[in-house]
């Protein structure tokens, strides 16, 4: 029934997923006015989400440019969902920014266009069946976010954008070299030309590839895309980019862009796994992941800026996810996917909350924010729930995934599990320390009521909480299937 409806649509879902944001970006670049554009932005987000969801129903056959499989559809649905909810949040957030004059009308037009361009780039990266195309898409996504991070034009924002730009460029260069190497590896087997970059062909022929070249390729790809993922010590751009840009962008960065980069890494991990003679990519991911978790855990203690705090928390969680995928195996892969989903939802929810909090308090400094649960109960408790969830307390889904990651690791390598637990504990301590200062105590800072859109916040958090209590069977099977692919 639904399948028929989808089939009858004028646009194929896969096209729609790309075309809607692309057209919206072009349109939004032209249209003036705040209310209309914000609404259009939300509408485009919604339509993209619908298109992505219909991909679930009707999955196109893999073409030479685009393809959809069990793995990338997770990312697409998650990405479009977070993109949509963030656009809702963005509408109220940006409204306030316009009011206080932090953003001008021109900025706004630019902002909305870039927002949809980013959506387009990410969807492109996710659906691309060509490693070169994927690379181009990720570079595009990076560039759009660089521009958005710098949108406030303050000294700090420009500096953050600059840092992001330079480090991102080097990362992108390394990734390109890796991509070229993969092509070189594939060429003797698959043949010259376009085919040697088509993902589905690469995987099917991978066992015949020269393993040495593939190893070197993976190192470059891991470092290149790993920079985007924000793994320590390649993370440097991430905290500042999160802290200085508009909060919706922080939410999108943490909730989406990091995932897209991770997706790229996973793709190449699959490629390597298909060739038994190559090095196991797992240990590299495990080491970088563990390093990120512990490093970010310690860094959290010294943070004075609320958004930078949660940016470091993103590093920690991306580390954890990389760790899980690096460990591999059905349980850890499942947990990694689940964790990625939960992290996206939770972290963007946290950014929704702190976006409004920072607006109402007029500051991002942790020391100047106190007792939000008193002055703004809904925001405050939303933040408490979000942070508790991200810190891995039940009944949030993050708890489930952390449980699976640690306990499954422990059976295989107790020392690693203990180290991971140590890192998580360190991070937990820091997050809760800051949370209890911000959420409780004698209220400090603005007490004015806030015109916030609570819907995205509540929607994300309830999804996360529900996932901790109950994961629906189809979802579990789907994730298990993907976990099998990643092995």
């Amino acid at each position, binding site marked *: 029934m639904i399948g028929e409806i989808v089939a009858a649509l004028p646009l194929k879902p896969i096209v729609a997923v790309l075309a809607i944001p692309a057209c919206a970006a072009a349109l939004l670049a032209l249209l003036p006015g705040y209310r209309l554009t914000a609404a259009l932005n939300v509408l485009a987000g919604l339509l993209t989400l619908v298109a992505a969801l219909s991909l679930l129903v009707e999955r196109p056959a893999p073409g030479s440019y685009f393809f959809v499989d069990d793995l990338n559809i997770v990312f697409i649905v998650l990405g479009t969902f977070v993109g949509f909810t963030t656009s809702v949040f963005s509408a109220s957030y940006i409204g306030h920014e316009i009011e206080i004059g932090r953003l001008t009308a021109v900025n706004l037009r630019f902002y909305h266009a870039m927002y949809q361009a980013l959506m387009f780039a990410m969807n492109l990266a996710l659906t691309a069946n060509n490693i*070169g*195309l994927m*690379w*181009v898409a990720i*570079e595009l996504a990076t*560039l759009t976010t660089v521009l958005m991070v710098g949108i406030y034009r303050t*000294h*700090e924002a*420009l*500096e953050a954008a*600059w840092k992001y*730009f*330079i480090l991102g*460029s*080097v990362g*992108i*260069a390394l990734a*390109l*070299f890796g991509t*070229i*190497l993969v*092509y*070189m*590896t594939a*060429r*003797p*087997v698959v043949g*010259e*030309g*376009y085919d*040697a*970059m088509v993902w589905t062909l690469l995987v099917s022929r991978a066992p*015949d*590839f*020269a393993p*040495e*070249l593939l190893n*070197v390729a993976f190192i470059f790809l891991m470092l290149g895309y790993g920079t985007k993922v924000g793994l320590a010590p390649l993370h440097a751009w991430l905290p500042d980019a999160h*802290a200085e840009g508009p909060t919706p962008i922080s939410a999108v960065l943490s909730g989406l862009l990091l995932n897209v980069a991770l997706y790229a890494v996973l793709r190449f991990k699959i490629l390597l796994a298909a060739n038994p003679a190559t090095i196991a990519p797992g240990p590299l991911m495990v080491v970088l992941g563990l390093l990120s978790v512990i490093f970010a855990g310690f860094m959290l203690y*010294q*943070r*004075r*800026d609320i958004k*930078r705090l949660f940016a470091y928390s993103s590093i920690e969680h991306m580390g954890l996810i990389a760790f899980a995928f690096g460990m591999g195996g059905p349980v850890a892969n499942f947990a990694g996917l689940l964790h990625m989903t939960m992290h996206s939802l939770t972290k963007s929810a946290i950014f929704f909350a702190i976006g409004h909090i920072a607006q109402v308090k007029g500051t*991002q*400094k942790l*020391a100047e924010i106190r007792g939000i649960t008193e002055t703004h109960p809904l925001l405050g408790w939303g933040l408490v729930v979000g942070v508790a969830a991200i810190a891995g307390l039940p009944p949030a889904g993050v708890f489930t995934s952390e449980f699976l990651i640690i306990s499954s690791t422990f059976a295989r390598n107790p020392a690693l599990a203990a180290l991971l637990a140590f890192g998580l504990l360190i991070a937990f301590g820091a997050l809760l320390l800051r949370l209890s200062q911000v959420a409780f105590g004698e209220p400090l800072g603005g007490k004015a009521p806030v015109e916030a859109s609570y819907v995205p916040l509540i929607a994300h958090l309830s999804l996360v909480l529900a996932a901790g209590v109950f994961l629906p069977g189809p979802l579990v099977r789907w994730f298990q299937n993907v976990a099998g692919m990643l092995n």
Partner: protein
Amino acid sequence: MVQFSLDFAHLLAGGLVLISFMLLYQDRMFGLLNVFALHAVVLSLSVSWQAYVQDAPHLYITAAIALGLKAILIPIALHRVVVRLGIHREIETVGGIGLTMLAGMGLVALSMVVMLRVTGAADPLAREDLAFALSVILLGLLMMVTRRNAVSQIIGFMSLENGLILAATGAKGMPLVVEISVAFSVLVALIVIGVFLFRIRERFDSVDIEALDEVRGDRS
């Protein structure tokens, strides 16, 4: 003929590595810009040779971009930046030039070891071409991390990128090469514009980080 084309390609790639060393050796700003222009010219030659050998005319576009943009436009632009912003004419290095040269030798050796281990399946052209390309890339990165001036860092990045183009054009039949080289040129242009716009005079680090962090409140 095949052997000759290979040898010539190797000669050009090897020349690129050599010029990368020359870049490392420079301690004067203008000298650096000139050597970089030479770097771009050699790259352009190499790309053209590949276009000819592989009979891939679209690669001439890439060669043209390399020549026009990197060998001429950007050096001139940077020249003006240096003059306009009154940037020091001397290049500040970390660890001294001799040491960076030694490190560069090590890097070349490393890339040879890494790439020459790749045996059998890959054809020798690709293998040796890649070894040179990797050397150029690593030397470019080395330059970025051992030079304190923003301009020399940009040049490091561009030489890194030249290495990438070298690798991409050497990879016979690789699609999207032109697009990629265009995309990279845009990136480089943006960086140069960034330097110009943000008045990053001396170094990428010259933005007073300490003072900034006070503002951000990330330092107690």
